[in-house]
Every structure is written in structure tokens, then in C-alpha cells.
């Protein structure tokens, strides 16, 4: 480096100050003449994509622009709509929350127009965090949430045990707004704002820490233990990650529905989604890539999940957060310190990141591919039953019995009533306790019952779950699928019951 600076000094015009003074705060760049590719003036601080160097201001402008453009071009979020921001404490979702915060505070012409809330899910029970550590993390989390000024919700993952059966039913799909509807909504919103002379959404530090359907306060020891037992009993880290994802999603959607949020924003970055796309392929979820990695995911019907950070790479996020002091909270996760091959997720992450290091267009290539995926049912297929866990339309083709999947699912009734009408379709059944409904499965293994209603990926996952789970899916799910009057009560009875209770009730 010393040689480099001497060269520069020699070539610099006489009388000009030595370069070190000009670049006093920045280290000597390798190529001293290098300037920001955008403004051609500023000194570059970060290289993104393949060799594009940006100065601090242009980087910020690009970063913010990407976020706004992603929301703007998709036109899915209507003015005044309530949007729940799913914040994990990690860098990407923190950046997303901060972008929303800044976006709402701009001058009225360009201001973001939706109404946000933030949710944080405390997953400490899944990785064995002690109650003291969890409390410490929550204290930090609350501080950050209060800074945002948005209404916030903190829920423990254990609350998933108390979810009502309705959470697994796909609600009627809301028709997506058309282009003209969007424009009309924007115009009328602007008129309203003008008439009110309002300066914008008042940001009080409200919090909605309590969900009306869940027990007040932190989870009980019994629930935490049940959650720990559940995760400890899962055989593979891959299945644990998928299970966590499923439970977290259902919980977030439940809170969203309860508080009138029609959209949920997640902070999945470009890098993460590229990894997720490849991981999903490996997990047998190829049919659902468009929903798993696209901008919008409407599988849950009334609440749509959107991913506004999907064009931001993890590098951009980390740099932005560092340069512009975006707060985040570091929490241990399931895969913290896990070795490279511990799960399919980890393996794929390592693969993609190593490839990216050698071929810097890897992530963007995978991303471009995911943009081209189309969500369309196969020709001639009416939307059929949905997977119980991931809510995607089952990729069932009874005509295709040649494949292993076709053979497995060939006896699944084509005319299975959609879940929304399940309460009506299922008449009274001879089974007192479990799984009454069409195709009575009296005496049949409830596990097999559940497996039949899962997509291929979720089925493979379920194989790594133990035979008996304390008070949750195995017994309550069949009743959720075909709910009867007392289903909710039965679910409640099962919640904290141990396997003894389970055995007793199955005989009733």
C-alpha cells in the first residue's frame, strides 16, 4: 500500500495536497482513481453486484429506491391498509422495519401510505434459551419496538398451542385488487388526506402485547417444556427448521387476523430467497416455489404475505445497517453453531454462498429465475384440497399413479370438500373423539390420517417427528379438519395433556 500511495503522489499535479488528506476518513483505495459508479464523484465505500462501487449517499439512495420500487411496482398494498411487519430481530427484517419507518415520515407526496404494526415472535423455547436470557432479549426487543412508535405485538411461540382450530382453515380468498381499483384507492386516500389537512398517521407508542385469544402474560413453564420437548424429539435439524417455520407462520397469521391486518411483510432478502429456492427444491417443495419465494404469497386467503426485501442482498443489508445505524437484536437460533451439513438448509446456504464468492452473479441468477415462476393451477385442475400444514394446494394427480407420489395419494378422494365448508359437509359421525367426517377413519392411526392431507414436502418432514406429540397436532388436527361442535373443547382438553390423557380419550 505504501508503494501505491507514492505512485499516486508522483502522478498527482504539483501543489495538490497528498491523497491521504483528501481521503482522511477512508482508507487508501486499491484503485485511487476509483469513483462511485453512479455519481462519478463520491468516494466509494461499498461494492455491490459484480464490481459496482457506490459512495455512501448513492448507496443509500439505491437501497431506499429498491424498497420503494418493490412495493410500488407490485401495487398490492392499498393506502390505509393495515400491514403487520414480521420482525425477527435479525438484520434483514430490522432493515425492513426501518425502511417502513423512514418511508412513512417523508413528505406527503412520496410517503408510504399503509398502517404498520410490528410483531416479534419469541422462539427461545426451541433452542433451549433460559428464562432469564429470554427475558433479557425481550427487554432489548421492547426498547427497539418502542423506538419505532408502531403498535407492536410480542408473542411467544408457545402460544401456538392455544391456537383455535380455525387457524388451519384456509379462509375464502379475497379477490386481489385490480390496477384501476388500486389507482382509485390511492386517489381517494389522497383526497381524504387533503381534506383532513392531516399531517399523517399519528405515531404513538401503543402496544398490543396481549392477544385476546391467548393466555395473558409470558408462557407457562408447562407450555415452554412442551415446546422444548417437541423440538428435542424431532430427529433432524431439517425437520426442526421446517416445523419452526410452520408454527411461526401460523402464529403470525393468527395475530394478523385477530388485529385486522390484511398483509404481513417478511424481511426475506435476495440471498435468503435464493437459498430458500434451492432448499425448497431439495425438500420436495418444487411445486410451491412461486409462493415460497415470490413477492406475494396468497395461500392463506385473507392475509397475504409480501416480501419487500427480496431484491436486497445480505451484503447490502449488512452494510446499510452498519452505515446508517439500524438497530437489531441478536438472538440465538436453531442452527446457531450448527455444522455445515447439519441440515439441508445449512448445506444449501454454504453451497450458494461459496458459489457466490467465486461467481458473483449466482444469487441474482437464482433470483431472476424465481421471478419467472408463475402461479397457475395445472390445466384442467380445479383447485383441490390444501396441505394441512403449509396450506399449499396439494399437488395431487390421481391419474398419475405411475409416480410414487401418485401412488401414495391415489385413494385421496377427489371430491373432498374444501376446508371452509368442512363444518357443513361433515355430518354427525359414529366416531366420538377423533377425526369424524367423510371417509370415517375409526380406529385408524391418526398419524396416517394427517399424512394423507399433507403435501409431499410436509410428509417427508413429518417422518422425522415422533410418534406421539404432547397435546397438539396429532389428535387435534383431524378434529380441526372436520370440526364438530365440541372440537374446540377437545382441543383445549388436549393442550397440556400428557400421553396418558391422550390414550384415555382415544378410547372414549
Amino acid at each position, binding site marked *: 500500500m505504501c508503494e501505491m500511495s507514492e505512485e499516486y503522489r508522483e502522478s498527482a499535479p504539483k501543489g495538490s495536497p497528498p491523497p491521504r488528506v483528501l481521503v482522511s476518513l*477512508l482508507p487508501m*483505495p*486499491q484503485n485511487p482513481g476509483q469513483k462511485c459508479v453512479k455519481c462519478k464523484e463520491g468516494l*466509494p465505500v461499498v*461494492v455491490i453486484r459484480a464490481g459496482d462501487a457506490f459512495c455512501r449517499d448513492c448507496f443509500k439512495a439505491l437501497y431506499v429506491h429498491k424498497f420503494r420500487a418493490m412495493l410500488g411496482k407490485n401495487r398490492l398494498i392499498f393506502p390505509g391498509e393495515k400491514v403487520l411487519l414480521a420482525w425477527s430481530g435479525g438484520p434483514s427484517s430490522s432493515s425492513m422495519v426501518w425502511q417502513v419507518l423512514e418511508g412513512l415520515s417523508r413528505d406527503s407526496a412520496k410517503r408510504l401510505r399503509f398502517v404498520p404494526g410490528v410483531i416479534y415472535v419469541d422462539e427461545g423455547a426451541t433452542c433451549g434459551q433460559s428464562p432469564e436470557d429470554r427475558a433479557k432479549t425481550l427487554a432489548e426487543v421492547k426498547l427497539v419496538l418502542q423506538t419505532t412508535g408502531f403498535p407492536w405485538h410480542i408473542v411467544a411461540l408457545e402460544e401456538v398451542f392455544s391456537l383455535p382450530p380455525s387457524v388451519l382453515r384456509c379462509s375464502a380468498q379475497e379477490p386481489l385488487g385490480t390496477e384501476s381499483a388500486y389507482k382509485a384507492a390511492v386517489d381517494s386516500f389522497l383526497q381524504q388526506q387533503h381534506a383532513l389537512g392531516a399531517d399523517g398517521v399519528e405515531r404513538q407508542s401503543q402496544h398490543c402485547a396481549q392477544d385476546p385469544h391467548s393466555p395473558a402474560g409470558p408462557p407457562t413453564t408447562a407450555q415452554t417444556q412442551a415446546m422444548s420437548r417437541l423440538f428435542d424429539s424431532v430427529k433432524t435439524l431439517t425437520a426442526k427448521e421446517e416445523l419452526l417455520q410452520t408454527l411461526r407462520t401460523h402464529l403470525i397469521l393468527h395475530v394478523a387476523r385477530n388485529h385486522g391486518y390484511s398483509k404481513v411483510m417478511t424481511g426475506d432478502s435476495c440471498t*435468503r430467497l435464493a437459498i430458500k429456492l434451492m432448499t425448497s427444491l431439495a425438500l420436495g417443495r418444487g411445486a410451491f416455489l412461486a409462493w415460497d419465494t415470490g413477492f406475494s404469497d396468497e395461500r392463506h386467503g385473507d392475509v397475504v404475505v409480501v416480501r419487500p426485501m427480496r431484491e436486497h442482498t445480505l451484503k447490502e443489508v*449488512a452494510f446499510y445497517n*452498519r452505515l446508517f445505524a439500524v438497530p437489531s437484536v441478536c*438472538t440465538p437460533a436453531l442452527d446457531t453453531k450448527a455444522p455445515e451439513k447439519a441440515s439441508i438448509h445449512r448445506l444449501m446456504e454454504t453451497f450458494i*454462498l461459496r458459489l457466490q464468492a467465486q461467481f458473483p452473479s449466482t444469487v441474482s441468477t437464482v433470483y431472476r429465475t424465481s421471478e419467472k415462476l408463475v402461479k397457475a393451477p395445472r390445466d384442467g385442475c380445479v383447485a383441490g384440497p390444501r396441505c394441512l400444514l403449509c396450506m399449499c394446494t396439494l399437488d395431487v394427480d390421481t391419474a398419475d399413479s405411475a409416480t410414487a407420489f401418485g401412488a401414495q395419494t391415489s385413494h385421496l378422494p377427489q371430491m373432498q370438500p374444501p376446508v371452509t365448508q368442512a363444518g357443513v359437509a361433515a355430518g354427525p359421525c359414529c366416531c366420538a373423539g377423533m377425526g369424524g367426517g367423510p371417509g370415517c377413519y375409526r380406529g385408524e392411526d391418526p398419524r396416517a390420517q394427517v399424512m394423507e392431507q399433507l403435501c409431499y414436502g410436509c410428509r417427508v418432514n413429518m417422518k422425522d417427528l415422533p410418534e406421539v406429540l404432547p397435546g397438539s397436532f396429532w389428535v387435534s388436527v383431524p378434529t380441526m379438519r372436520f370440526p364438530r361442535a365440541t372440537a374446540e373443547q377437545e382441543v383445549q382438553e388436549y393442550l397440556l395433556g400428557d400421553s396418558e390423557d391422550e390414550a384415555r380419550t382415544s378410547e372414549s
Partner: protein
Amino acid sequence: PAALGMLCLRSGSLRAIVFEGVIFCSVLSSAGDIRSLLVWIKKNLLKERPELFIQGDSVRPGILVLVNDADWELLGELDYQLQDQDSVLFISTLHGG
């Protein structure tokens, strides 16, 4: 990086702090290039699981390196010669989302 707790270390020419997935190094007096810094870090800071941070003679993919808040890719990466008062920051992008 291995420890989630805070670890502070000082040698003749370097001071390093490991905290919440980030390694922060203060260069007190010029101490060679980043390649040699990594060797020092591996030897002194990363008792367990060095492979979470170091791969070969460089950092693991997914770890960002900033020198005085600038991308090390602009500075020659491993070949950058550390100067007095430089701060080197190692951020893992692999934590959370």
C-alpha cells in the same frame, strides 16, 4: 464467529472485541496485512469452531469485512496493509433475517 458473549483481547498492536456475532479490531500500530490479522484472530480469538469464521486463509463466505466502514473489496481484500488507527470490522451476514 464463535462467541455470542463479549471477548476483549489486546496484543502489542491490536485490540479486538467479539460481540454478538461481530468482530471489531482496532489497529494500534500497523500490523501487517489483513491476511496476517486473520491468522492472529484464528489463533487468539476463535477457540472453538474457527471454521465458522475462517476458511482457508480468508474469511468464510457470508462474512463481510469493513475497514474504516469501507468494503475491503475496494482495498485489495487480504492484501490490504493495516495502518495505524484503522478499524477492521467483521460482520456475519448469516445471522437471522
